[in-house]
């Protein structure tokens, strides 16, 4: 009786082979990464543009994008933040979008700013929440499809995402 039960147990164990477990896990991993990236790059237009121009035009544009933030913030719930992109903002040469992303916030996206030639100047000021010390990343997309990125480190003392 006991032996029979043992054999049955082994059979059930064998049916769930190591290979099957690993293949299931890998599918789960692929799925979760997809979900993660789709969360970051929600705009389909931006996504396709990024794919096209990733290799050609992406560069660390420290003199093109400027992130104005304090070096350290005591309270992460309202950090003054502004971003400026050097651009003439004419019909033929303007900044289309600026994405602001965080490294360690529970939700990585902070904001997306859409500019037009009517904006006159690619500058925005707002206040953001940050969960801990991290880089804040800005990705600017110009009308010709070129993409520039820049980032800045900020020290945060109090988590701004859960408390108010």
């Amino acid at each position: 009786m006991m032996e029979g039960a043992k054999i049955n147990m082994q059979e059930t164990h064998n049916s769930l082979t190591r290979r099957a477990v690993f293949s299931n896990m890998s599918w789960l991993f692929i799925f979760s990464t997809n979900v993660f990236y789709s969360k970051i790059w929600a705009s389909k237009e931006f996504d396709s543009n990024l794919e096209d121009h990733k290799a050609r035009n992406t560069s660390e544009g420290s003199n093109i994008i400027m992130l104005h933030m304090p070096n350290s913030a005591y309270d992460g719930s309202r950090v003054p933040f502004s971003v400026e992109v050097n651009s003439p903002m004419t019909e033929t040469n303007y900044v289309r979008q600026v994405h602001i992303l965080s490294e360690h916030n529970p939700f990585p996206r902070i904001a997306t700013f859409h500019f037009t030639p009517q904006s006159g100047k690619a500058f925005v000021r707002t206040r953001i929440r940050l969960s801990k010390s991290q880089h804040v990343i800005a990705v600017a997309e110009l009308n010709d499809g070129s993409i520039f990125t820049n980032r800045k480190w900020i020290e945060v003392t109090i988590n701004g995402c859960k408390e108010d």
Partner: protein
Amino acid sequence: MGKPILRVKAPEEVKQGEIVEIMTLISHPMHTGLRKDLNGELIPRKIINEFICIYNGEIVFRTNMHEAISANPLIQFNFLAKESGDLDFLWHEDGGEVYKTVRRIKVN
């Protein structure tokens, strides 16, 4: 929560071709969906997810906002004054509510 207070700081008269600075503010708690109330229950997410500025029927500036924007979201941006007209400011809240205010700008 009562009705949000909308504030816009924009000049009334500007010169043509001038880059005008506009400051907007809406009083809104921007619930992220992570915080708990006094009974220990999660407060559902309710944020202003989009802000749009329309000038004579044309979108001048638009922003998608996420959970990481502070309570009472302040947005300061610029706009190129070409002709007199109405500036419409629209705040879209989760759930479809839209808050709107209008400013008239005179261009000399």
